[in-house]
């Protein structure tokens, strides 16, 4: 793997000047993944902040061939592109001659956990050679912070508002990484941009593997989390250190936790700075906070039980 110094010398494949918010988690994720490709790469992006923020015509932040088609079909789009590559390669018709191209689909949690789940499942099952990267910021941010099935427990969103009677989102989040791993694809992982080395290593591994691979990446969103832009990486780190967002991978069916916090931090430390959880800190909502913590503990324990095992 390249060192940070080497990485910093490479050309940015996603340039600056895009319109994503300052402090947004998406650009560092995309840059680290694209760098890991280390060669020709073609990408697609589902409708959402990344797409809108990088391509307002006539501008583009992409220095690689890139396409946006719709919200729910990034996996189907990349299936088509990757298959065209196979077909044209076979006929010796690749522009610029024969070459190895990597294919990457980026989607938000809405475009991946919810509306795009069918297309993703189909593409994984068919075994296309591509990496799917979900940047999970925990809501439909581009359209104004509506809840998704990835939204954390009790989170205040515009469609799961913390009201007088209902205190935010009532459902536990969908465990997409495990759902994806259940497709028995060669590689699935969870990562976070604060741990660039772990993220890069996973992306490199995923991109080297033949067949469908998947990465679910925690993506801080100052706008939707009601946090300060300069603190994003800190909150990404705390999501991992509280074990809300464990870093692990499933390679050829074997689950491996890739980072164990030396000291598991109380969930409250991660929730406290985020405006979306403000209501949880009221004394009368202590029980909700306890419930949230208990569920995080349970999920973490489940993962610990599986560490090193074939799942």
């Amino acid at each position, binding site marked *: 793997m390249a060192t940070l110094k080497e990485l910093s010398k490479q050309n940015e494949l996603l340039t600056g000047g895009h319109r994503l918010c300052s402090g947004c988690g998406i650009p560092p994720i995309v840059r680290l993944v694209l760098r890991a490709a280390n060669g020709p790469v073609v990408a697609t992006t589902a409708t959402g902040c990344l797409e809108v923020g990088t391509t*307002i015509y006539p501008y583009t932040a992409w220095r690689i061939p890139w*396409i946006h088609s719709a919200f729910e*079909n990034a996996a189907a789009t990349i299936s*088509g592109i990757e298959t*065209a590559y196979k077909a044209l390669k076979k006929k010796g018709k690749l522009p610029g001659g024969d070459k190895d191209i990597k294919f990457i689909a980026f989607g938000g949690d809405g475009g991946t956990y919810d509306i795009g789940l069918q297309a993703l499942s*189909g593409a994984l099952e068919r075994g296309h050679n591509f990496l799917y990267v979900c940047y999970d910021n925990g809501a439909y941010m581009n359209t104004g912070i509506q809840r998704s099935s990835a939204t954390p427990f009790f989170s205040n969103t515009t469609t799961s508002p913390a009201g007088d009677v209902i205190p935010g989102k009532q459902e536990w989040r969908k465990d997409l990484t495990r759902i994806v791993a259940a497709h028995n694809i060669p590689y699935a992982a969870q990562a976070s941009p604060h741990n660039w080395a772990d993220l890069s290593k996973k992306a490199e591994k995923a991109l080297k593997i033949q067949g469908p691979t998947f990465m679910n990446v925690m993506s801080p969103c100052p706008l939707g989390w009601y946090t300060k832009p300069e603190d994003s990486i800190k909150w990404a780190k705390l999501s991992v250190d509280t074990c809300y967002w464990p870093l692990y991978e499933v390679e050829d069916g074997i689950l491996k936790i890739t980072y164990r916090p030396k000291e598991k931090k109380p969930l409250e430390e991660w929730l406290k700075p985020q405006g979306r959880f403000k209501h949880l800190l009221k004394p009368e909502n202590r029980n909700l906070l306890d419930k949230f913590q208990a569920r995080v503990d349970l999920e973490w324990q489940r993962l610990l039980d599986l560490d090193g095992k074939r799942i």
Partner: protein
Amino acid sequence: MAITMTKGQAGLTGNSAIAYAMKQINPDVCPAYPITPSTAVIEEFASYVADGAVSTELITVESEHSAMSACIGAAAAGARVMTATSSQGLALMWEMLYIASGMRLPIILTDVNRALSAPINIHCDHSDSMGARDSGWIQLYSETVQEAYDNLIQAVRIAEDESVQLPVMVCLDGFITSHAIENITLLSDEEVQGFVGEYNAKTTLLDTDHPVTMGAMSLPENYIDFKFQQSQAIARSRETVLKVAEDFGKRFGRKYGLFETYRLEDADIAIVILNSAAGTTKVAVDELRKKGLKVGVLRPRLFRPFPFKELAEALKDKKAIAVLDRADSMNGFGGPVFNEIRSALYDAEKRPKVVSRIYGLGGRDYKVKDAIAVFDELKAIAETGRVETLQKYITL
């Protein structure tokens, strides 16, 4: 699928003829999902793939939405792409149809026309493709198996023409044409290959040395300009359709135009009707002509772009016209074809009377007697100059 051919002739269903044309075209990528009555197209093409008769990559997607999405991805990557569907399948693709045409991707789709649910019904009507008439796709309609086969081969050239660069939908009637066996004349593989030529996309995602951004967000400063260019392109395709048909006619002897007329020239009254039901109407015309009635048929082949000038020219001297639609624009001003034909005739000096008749929904039979009844009504309209019922359902 082995096709038994005698002197270039074979007895084929519409679906087999479409699959065979696809085999001869040998597209790079075919994303496909089955639905009655177009399923056999996909099945037979899958056997061509399995037998190595084509070099196409088949993607057996998990839905029609993904089928069209994969078509878009593959076409954007420079592949020649084809698929087929019907009814609910086309409805599920609807979102993606606009993206395919908006991105100017020359995708070819066969729509085996079938009714839309509810109630669920697998039989023929044109609600599916009519629902997509504003999606920016060129639409070719086919009366017979032969025409469907010929249309599909021509569609490739139309779509890929440099001045067009748009997707094309070839429509044929579910069951009536898709499942009926007709003796048709097939071209040789070499003739088809020679006609469609090799496809080399100008801009492709796979040209990693020259990266392009496709599908960028466009604000009010330029969205309408893209749409204007797109509308110019589909308008231009009218010429391309004629040019391609002319070359097809020259090479293979079968002539096609924007529409077909049958005993129309000296007719006083006429029926305008799409696809297979035109055949039934022609039989009615022959019967009535024997009795000395001046009746005729006009069958549009190209519905998008709508050749309104030529259609108006062909119909302007008629006294009364019935436009028969196998789709209803629920409580709009008549059926979709009626609507446009009547509009096209608005500027005619002596405006013919034009009525709308909705027929044959969900596979209801349309018989010679139904056509004769419409002609009887038209005769009365022509004689009295009075229209009793402007729009109604027939074949009830």
